[in-house]
Each structure stands twice: as structure tokens, then as C-alpha cells.
């Protein structure tokens, strides 16, 4: 770790998780500092989504998770959300039957009425596109708008750390830039971001640091300004370092 | 209740103990209780009849035993609750007849179980006494040991038909039943009888008792010109709906039919008390008020019940009387003829004018239906008092 690393916000060590009998993650160590943007990269099936789910409590897991100094080992998704660790799940899964506004109100479930009202407006201010459609049913939005709505839902709680799972998936390049620009602005505002992305270059442009995940383990950790990063990533992806010759 | 399985076990334990102590066998037999198999439906659907009859039966057995039993031997009722379930009745018959070796079977009290139980009891050659009305249950060739202590459906329906056609002088009749065995069988039997009497059956149907709305049926009766409704059902909800619908329609037509028309359950389900006016149900002359008085035997019986603190308000007098008669008949028979099956049947075949509270019983070798036609009458249901009714208008006292 670089010495200049900011004060840690999320600290994970020895995390393991999976689906039923299928172990997906093993011995994950990962940290995100206060106000830091971290990209989590890796090929398909490496376990990135699983990692986010395990952190937010959507999946059972073992190992240590501390967030803002609190132990989150047995935390439910509700606990993590209330602690300020918000997970925007993959596939812009908004509630299509409800209006845009209602979708955002739900994100503030459990807050006081006034708090909710102000923070929903705040979140909408981030995305003028959808602010104009606040009374429309979320099902009528385009995919990109739905993704923005999903990110906006994540913002309603003014999280200290926002975990975004492939916000660019299925979006046109223009929309991808819009969504990622919002991520950049968030970071400027002091919100830490843990970003799972397929579009490596775009992710690297937003992030301070990067982790690469392959076959359920962290195989690389680096600052985004380090030299030779693309090459090291490629190795991490295609796994030539764990190559063993076969005799057939 | 005086009959539990524990007592049965205790009885056999005593038997075993005395056997072990080497007492002479005849002495044991002389002290052993005489077993009577008893098949009421005490729980489950349509158990109110069983509960009423049970009060009389238990009282009579207790009195017989308190009075020294049958030549020193107690009567022991082996009771098996059939829950109105024929499969339970079939199992129970096998147990009573084969394992308990009962001297007589009293019951089943409901036709549904009796239909299944009767051939089996006959096969096991055990004398059987029952109060079910279905005609087919008595057949001296198929079931030579089965005797009925109550009227048949034909008698019951005949009584109602007589009242409608000959007393009320009405010619256009609507006949309705629920879809149970009892209901459908009744309609099937009574309609031809009505026709034979010269009445015109302008409506005839079976209706699911769960059907909440009977207005279509009554409207049809009305438009067919019915002058009397004859419902055949033991379902109080069904009957009360007929009466309530009749009341709501403001249709002033007499309702003449089954005894349940006058039951407390039916009364409880009436929307207003007036709906019970002009309703005449089957009843039995021996247990009806005539000019405000019960016949002598019944009056005496009521005193007896009061002394024994038997509840009458929530059941019907004739049920308790019937239960009493059944047990009394068996007690008298055992006293006179002993516990051997053939002796019992021979005794019953000679019974003539046996004076029951509920009815006067006469059996012959050719006729095992013992209830006299003349004692099947109709009563005014809204005259219910202490479980008994006034005779319907038109009968000579």
C-alpha cells in the first residue's frame, strides 16, 4: 500500500463467500479509503458481483468486514445501508411499476419525511434527465435512464461508500460517459466509490486505485497511475502466471 | 359418561386376575358385565342427534346398573364414536363383534353408517337394534337379527304426506331436499307416495346444502303454484334458509317436513321468530303436548330426567326418549332372555306392544319394523318447550 493512503473506510480481510455449496470467493483482502474511488476489475465469472453482494450482506459470507470502524461481519443489507454503505445492484433493477419519484422515496425508507424529501431532490439534481420525468413510471424509462435512477437511488442516503455493479452494462457509449461522469462528481463530493466495470479504460479513468479479481481471488492491486498497468491487467485476466503445462 | 376404554381394560384385568386365582369359571361368567356395542356419532358433523340419544341411553344403563344390573351382571356399554364416518363404523363393528364379543349392537344412530354396518353385523350374527329410518336397513331375510325401534322413512314421509293431503287438504306440493343420502332417498320415496295419494308434485329437486341462496328454488316453487313446501333434510342451515327465504318473500305457505325443522339449531338460524310460524315437523304422538299436557309415560319420563339433572333445553325430548327406549329395550330383553344371540332374537320376534316412552314397539318374525303408524304425527315447531312440541292443528288429541 502506498504510504499516502487515506484513512480506511472499508476493510475486508479473509472474506469467503459463494452460492450454497459453490465457493466463489476465497481469502479476499480489500480496502477502500475515505473519499477514494476504487475500481474492481476482472474477467467474467471472477466473482466481482459475488464480492459486492457478500459485502452488502446479500450473500452469506465468512471473514472480517469493517466499515467506518464498525464490525459488519453479521450485517444484513439493511444494516449496511444504514451504516452508509450502499450497493447499486447490477442490471438497473428499478421498480418498473412505481414512478421515478417513488423509486427514490423507497431508497430513503426509514428516514424522516423531511430528510427524505430533501435528499431525494438532492439525488435528482445529479441527473437532470430523470428529474424531468419524476412522475413517470420507471418502466417507461430507457435503459440508461433506469441506470441513472438506480444510481440516484443509491445517492438518496448520502452514502459514505457507494458500490456500483457494472453501471455501464447495456448502455450506449454516450450514456456510459454520463453515468461515469456522475461517479466522478460523486467522488469529488467526497463519496468513496467501489466500481465494478467491464470497460477497463473508462473505469481506470475514474478510479484512484484498482483491484483485479480472477478465479475468486484478488490477483492484482495497483494505483491507476502506475506504469505498465494494462499489461499487468492482461496477465491477470488471462492468467498466464498460473499456467501449468498439460500432459494429455 | 360411564363407558371408557379404561373400564374395558379394567374389566378384562379383573377377569384375568380371577382366572389366575383359580376361581371356578361359572362364577366369573356370572359376575362379568354384559357388553353392549354402541355406535353413536358424538362428534363430527350431524352429531346433535347422537348427543341427544346418548343422554337417554347413558341414563337408562346407569339406572339398570344402579338397580343391580341383569341378575347381578352389569351392563357395559362399549362406545365407539363413529363421527358420522362409515369407515370408522366398519372398523368399530369388527372390533365390537369379533373382539369384544358384545351381546347386542345398539346403533349406528345415523343411516350413513348403518348402511355400511348392518350387513357386517348380520355377517357376524350379532343382534342389532337401531333407530335409523332408511327402509332398506330392515330386511328379515338379509338381516334376520336386525330390529328397528323407530319409524321407517316411509312411515315418516307417510305421516307428513297424510298431514298435507288429508288434514290440510292441499293438492299442489313442492318437495325439496339437500344432496345427502337421507335427503335424496326421502324425496325419491315420498314423491311417488304423494302422487299415489292424489297430490300433484309441482316441484322436486335436490340442492347442495352449502348453497347460500335458495331464493331461486322458492321462486320456482311459487311460480309452479305450490301450496305446501315439504323439505327433507337434517341440515339446520339448509332448512332455516328455506324458512327465512319464505319469510322474506312474504309467502304464506305451510312448510311440512323433517324433525330438524323444529330443532334448536334451526331456530337459532332464523332471521325472525315469525319465520317459524306455519311450520310443521314430524314428531311422535307419545312425546307431544296435546292440549298442553304430555302423555302419561312421557310426563313421568320428564320427571325422571329432571331428577337426574339431564339437560333438555338444548336437545329434543324424543331423542332422549329414543336413547332411553333403546337401552331399556335391551335391558328388558337381557333380563328376560339372557345374553345369547338366538334367545335375544327369539324374544324380540315375540315383542308385542312394548311400552316405550318414545313409541310402542311390536315385532314379529316377519316384521322387524316395530313402530306403529299411528304414532307418527306432525307438530307445531314454534311451540317448542322443554324439548317437546304441541301436536299440529287438526289431530284429535
Amino acid at each position, binding site marked *: 500500500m502506498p504510504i499516502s493512503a487515506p484513512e480506511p473506510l472499508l476493510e475486508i480481510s479473509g472474506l469467503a463467500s459463494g452460492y450454497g455449496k459453490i465457493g*466463489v470467493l476465497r481469502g479476499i483482502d480489500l480496502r477502500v479509503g475515505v473519499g477514494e474511488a476504487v475500481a474492481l476489475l476482472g474477467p467474467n465469472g471472477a466473482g466481482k458481483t459475488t464480492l459486492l453482494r457478500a459485502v452488502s450482506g446479500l450473500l452469506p459470507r465468512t471473514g472480517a468486514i469493517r466499515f467506518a470502524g464498525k464490525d459488519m461481519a453479521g450485517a444484513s443489507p439493511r444494516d449496511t445501508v444504514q451504516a452508509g454503505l450502499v450497493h447499486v445492484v447490477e442490471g438497473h433493477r428499478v421498480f418498473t411499476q412505481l414512478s421515478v419519484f417513488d423509486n427514490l422515496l423507497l431508497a430513503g425508507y426509514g428516514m424522516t419525511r423531511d430528510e427524505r424529501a430533501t435528499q431525494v431532490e438532492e439525488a435528482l439534481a445529479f441527473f437532470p434527465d430523470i428529474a424531468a420525468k419524476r412522475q413517470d413510471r420507471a418502466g417507461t424509462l430507457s435503459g440508461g435512464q433506469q441506470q441513472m435512477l438506480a444510481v440516484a437511488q443509491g445517492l438518496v442516503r448520502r452514502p459514505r461508500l457507494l458500490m456500483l455493479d457494472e453501471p455501464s452494462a447495456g448502455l450506449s457509449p454516450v450514456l456510459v460517459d454520463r453515468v461515469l461522469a456522475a461517479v466522478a462528481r460523486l467522488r469529488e463530493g467526497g463519496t468513496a466509490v467501489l466500481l465494478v466495470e467491464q470497460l477497463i479504460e473508462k473505469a481506470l479513468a475514474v478510479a484512484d486505485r484498482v483491484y483485479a479479481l480472477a478465479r475468486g481471488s484478488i490477483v492484482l492491486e495497483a494505483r491507476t497511475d502506475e506504469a505498465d498497468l494494462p499489461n499487468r491487467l492482461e496477465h491477470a485476466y488471462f492468467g498466464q502466471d498460473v499456467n501449468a503445462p498439460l*500432459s494429455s | 359418561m360411564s363407558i371408557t376404554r379404561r373400564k374395558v381394560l379394567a374389566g378384562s384385568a379383573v377377569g384375568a386376575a380371577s382366572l389366575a386365582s383359580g376361581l371356578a369359571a361359572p362364577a366369573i361368567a356370572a359376575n362379568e358385565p354384559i357388553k353392549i356395542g354402541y355406535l353413536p356419532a358424538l362428534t363430527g358433523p350431524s352429531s346433535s342427534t347422537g348427543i341427544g340419544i346418548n343422554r337417554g341411553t347413558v341414563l337408562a344403563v346407569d339406572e339398570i346398573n344402579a338397580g343391580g344390573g341383569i341378575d347381578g351382571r352389569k351392563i357395559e356399554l362399549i362406545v365407539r364414536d363413529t363421527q358420522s364416518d362409515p369407515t370408522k363404523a366398519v372398523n368399530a363393528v*369388527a372390533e365390537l363383534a369379533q373382539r369384544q364379543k358384545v351381546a347386542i349392537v345398539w346403533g349406528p344412530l345415523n343411516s350413513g353408517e348403518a*348402511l*355400511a354396518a348392518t350387513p357386517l353385523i348380520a355377517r357376524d350374527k350379532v343382534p342389532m337394534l337401531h333407530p335409523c329410518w332408511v327402509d332398506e336397513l330392515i330386511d328379515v331375510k338379509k338381516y334376520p337379527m336386525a330390529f328397528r325401534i323407530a319409524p321407517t322413512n316411509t312411515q315418516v314421509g307417510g305421516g307428513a304426506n297424510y298431514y298435507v293431503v288429508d288434514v290440510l287438504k292441499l293438492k299442489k306440493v313442492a318437495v325439496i331436499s339437500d344432496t345427502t343420502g337421507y335427503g335424496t*332417498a326421502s324425496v325419491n320415496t315420498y314423491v311417488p307416495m304423494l302422487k299415489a295419494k292424489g297430490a300433484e308434485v309441482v316441484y322436486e329437486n335436490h340442492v347442495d346444502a352449502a348453497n347460500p341462496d335458495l331464493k331461486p328454488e322458492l321462486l320456482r316453487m311459487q311460480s309452479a303454484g305450490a301450496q305446501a313446501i315439504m323439505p327433507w333434510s337434517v341440515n339446520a342451515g339448509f332448512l332455516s334458509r328455506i324458512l327465512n327465504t319464505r319469510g322474506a318473500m312474504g309467502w304464506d305457505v305451510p312448510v311440512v317436513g323433517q324433525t330438524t325443522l323444529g330443532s334448536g339449531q334451526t331456530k337459532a338460524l332464523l332471521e325472525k321468530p315469525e319465520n317459524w310460524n306455519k311450520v310443521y315437523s314430524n314428531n311422535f304422538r307419545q312425546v307431544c303436548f296435546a292440549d298442553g299436557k304430555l302423555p302419561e309415560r312421557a310426563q313421568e319420563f320428564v320427571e325422571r330426567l329432571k331428577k337426574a339433572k339431564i339437560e333438555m333445553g338444548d336437545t329434543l325430548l324424543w331423542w332422549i326418549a329414543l336413547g332411553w327406549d333403546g337401552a331399556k329395550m335391551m335391558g328388558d330383553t337381557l333380563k328376560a332372555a339372557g345374553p345369547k344371540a338366538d334367545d335375544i332374537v327369539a324374544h324380540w320376534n315375540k315383542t308385542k306392544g312394548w311400552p316405550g316412552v318414545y313409541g310402542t314397539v311390536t315385532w314379529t318374525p316377519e316384521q322387524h319394523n316395530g313402530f306403529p303408524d299411528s304414532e307418527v304425527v306432525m307438530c307445531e315447531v314454534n311451540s317448542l318447550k322443554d324439548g317437546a312440541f304441541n301436536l299440529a292443528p287438526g289431530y284429535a288429541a
Partner: protein
Amino acid sequence: MTDTSAPAQPVRALSLARIEGALPWIALGLVGLLLPLLDDSYIGVIAQRAFIYWILSAGLNLVVGYAGQIAIGWVSMLTLGAYTTAALTAGTATPAWHPYLALVAGGAVGALFGVIVGLPALRLRTFYFAMTTLGFATIVTQVALAWKEVTGGGVGTPGPVFPWPFDPGWGFYYFCFILAALATWMTANLASSRFGRALVAIRDAEVAAEASGVAKPRLLVAVFLFAGALGGVAGGLFASLQSYITPDAFTFEMSVLFFIAILIGGRGSILGPALGTIVLTVLPEFAAPLVQWSTFLYAALLLLIVLIIPGGIADLLDYKNRRPLERHREIVPRPELLARVLDRRTGGEVLSLANVELSFGGVRAIAGLDLEIRPGEVHGLIGPNGSGKTTTLNVISGYYAPEAGQVRLGDAVLPPRAPHLRADYRIARTFQTPRLIGGASVLDNVMIGGTIDGQGSFAESLLTLPRHRRDEKRLREAAMLALAVVGLDQLAAVRADRLQHSELRFMEIARALMLRPACLMLDEPAAGLSADEIRRLGALIVAISRQGTAVLLVEHHADLIFDICDRVTVLNLGKVLAAGTPAEIRSHREVVSAYLGA
């Protein structure tokens, strides 16, 4: 490891287990046979009732316990059989029939209506199906009430009296006993046949069953037919036992009783439900004071079973599967045995996709895909999420019909939307999440894969005719061999849900090998495996392909892909981005950037 003979020891253990499994039946049979010596006809009646209920439950057990169809209203079969037998014997509808013939007719009517009631199961969700069976039971009772001329309406009708040799009393007792034994024997035969395994597969792993060539409609119809026939026969006997039947004898409570007996006994067992039926028939006789609470107690028992021991009595009796397994197990595949599993007559054909297109709701999942998977080669299919890999697999497997283009094996065009026909083309596959029958042994799971190679019919299996026995022997040997190939032969008798995840992956491959596949599709077989296991898996896959099988490998482990594939196709946005040898792909800049998301 040069020994190429399949280990025989587990087979011997299995046949020992079969003898052991027969012991409770022998005991029950002896009790049934000797019961008349007590000369207590009360016990006789209760036993007859238990036999009769079991005849119905034995069939229903196949429907509920094996196929997993929640048929709550099966009492309707008893009603139909009882009324048919009674009415024909009494001659209310036709000239009077001989009672034995009428009983056969009762069975036939039961079979017919079993199919009619069962058919909705092919289309309806569980709860809906449960409701339709209930509805049908009500209709039957209503019709029995209404059709007075034949059924006697509410008054009912006398039951048949069977003449010598099975006349009332102990004769009839032995009649019920023999038929119950027969029903047990036939259902046990069926349960241990490929049809029985397929039923359980439909219940627990429907997709895998389809991929193995199980035709669900035909199988379920056969089972409903058989279960209905048993229900009808039980009904005829019931009518005779009752001596007189009325519609009120066939209550919903009775239906629930059959159903609960099976579940208390345990799904997928025969002994368990048989014991359950006996217990539920006999229990009320010992608990007379509790009679009015009996339904309450049954229901409470059911709730307890569901919540605490979903496996039922059978699970409690299954002590063998509670013995601990060895902890550190290693999977050592033996590819050298492959030649004995895969016969070469079936190989040698190319699986090809030509210009296949498919879109979902306006999104093009596959946009003009060409693919050629050659025998003897391992063909890797990679690409980012949403690039269409799984969709491609599902098109080949027949779950989706392509909107344009064709899938061929050799010259034959594969029928779209017919996953259960793929097995006929010797196309086998494994699944991302292993699809297994947890409650069945590993061997049984693997034998599912050979379903289409059975020659014998449903009826032959019921009666264990020679063809059935040959089928079973061949399937068992082939499965043991396939298990030896993947290195799991020592675990053949173990319940599959006790295996580790990695072992399940190899078990799926063994199941796929049972088809002697011309084409084998592996969907992320390395997911969740250790590096060591991945290496062995790689060697096994290569060995399979060298036997002449075309292997399609969808995998995220890039190193495995590049190590063992002869050819790699990279998909992106539903199109082929690149195709070639691993070396070519590895250096293909577009691939790298697509992967890296540049």
C-alpha cells in the same frame, strides 16, 4: 494406474444393500401372511383397510413422492373405482358383471381418470394443480350424488361381494394382501427403473432430465395411468370392505390422509410411505378418545415433518447415509477407461450453427452466429458478460428457437424448442449450477444420463421382465464405468447431496458421458474448482475429445481455455469477434481489448 477394469466392489456393496433393503419387506410380508393365525377379524378388518389404502397410496406415491406432483384430491380415484365396481356388480347401468371383472373395470376407469386429472400437471404450477385435483374430487362426489340411477345417489349402493376364493373374511383378506404386495412389487420395480429415476429427475432436476432425453409428458401420463389404475382397484376393494358406499364415505380428510401418509413416509421412498400408511390406518384405533382430534393430529404431524424432517421416516431409517464420509477425498479421473465408455460409431459428426439469430424484447442476443464444433476437438467459447455464450448453448440445447439460421449435427437439422430430443442426437451437456437429484445415490444420478438407451417399456419395468433387467444391468455397468472415468466410483452409493461441489461437477460429466455423446457441451465446468482439480478436469476433457467427441467448452478460466482448446471462438454482442487457435486468439488485439473493455 494401468488397471483398466472398473472396480467391482461398489457394485457388490450395492447388491448387498439391496438384500438389506428387502428385509423390512420380508418382515412385513410375513406379518401379513401370518396375521390370520390370530383369528381376530377386527385386526383383519384394520389390516384389510391398511392394504387397500396402501394399494392407492403406492400409486399416489409415484405421483407425489417421486414425480413431486401435489395431487391432494386423489381420493377421487378411490371414489371412481368404488362406484364403478359396485355399480357394475349391482348391474344398475349394464347387465350385472362378475365382481372380479368389475374390479378390473374399476381399475380401468381409475386409469382413465388418473390421466385426465393428471394432465393439467403438465401445464400448471404446483398450487394450481393441487387445486384442480381438489376440484375434481368434488366434482366426482357431486356426480355420484346426482347420478342416482347408477350410484344410488345419496343413499348409496351396496359394495361388491367377491365370490370364492376371495370371499368375505380371510379370503378377502388374502385378496387385499396379494394385491397390496403386487402393488408394492410393481411400484418398487418402477421406482428402481430408469422410469423411476426419470420421475425423480423431473421433480428435482427437470432441466437435466430434459437434457438426458426424458420426455416428461409421456412419462407423467404413464405414471398417472398406473397410479389411477391402482386407485381404482383400491376403490373396488374399498367398496367391498365397506359393504355399502355413499358419497359421504369419500371425504377430503381421507384424501389428506393418503397424502400425509406418503409425506410422513418420505419422498422418493416406498418403505417409508408404506409404514406411514400403516401407522395412519392403525393409529386411530388405538387412540379412540382422540378420534375427534385425529385430523388435527395428522395435520400437526405433517407440519412437523415439513419443518423438521422433510425427508420423513425414510430419512430416519437411512442410517447408511449418516455414516461419515472420508474427509479429504481426491478426485482422480481415469481417462484411460474412456475407450470403453464412448463407442466410436456415434462420433465423427460436426455440430454447426449457421447464421443463427435470436433477440429478446428487441435486444439482439445473437446476431448472425456461425460456429463449427468438430469431432475430436475441444472448442472454447468465450466472451464478456452478455456476449451470448449462454444463449448459444441454450439454442443448441433446444430451449430457444432461433429466429433465423439453423443448428445441425452432421446433415441433420436439430429441431428447435425440443430440449428433450437432443439426447437422441447424442448431444449431452452439463450445467453452470450442477443439476442433481440430492436424495438419490451418485450412481442413480449418473444412470439418468443413459435413459434413452433403455429398451424396455414402462410395463416391462413394472413387471421386471427380462428386457428391463438387461437394461438395468447395462445401465448400471455403464454408469459405474463412467464414474470410474471421472474418478468417483468409490462414491457410487453415496447420496448425491453429500458430495462436495467439485465432485458434483465431475458427476455431471459422468452423467453426460452416459449418452456416449457425439457432442458434449460443458457450461463453466471449472467454476469453483481448485487449481489441481482444474488441471485434472482439463486432462479429462481433452481425453474425451480425443475419443472423437466434439466438445464445446464455455469457460471463464482463460488459462484453462488456452491450455486445452484446439480452437477458440470469442463472442461479443452476439457476434463472432474472433476465431482461431488459442495462440492466435491470445495475440488478437481486438479480443484483448474487448476483454479489457477498451
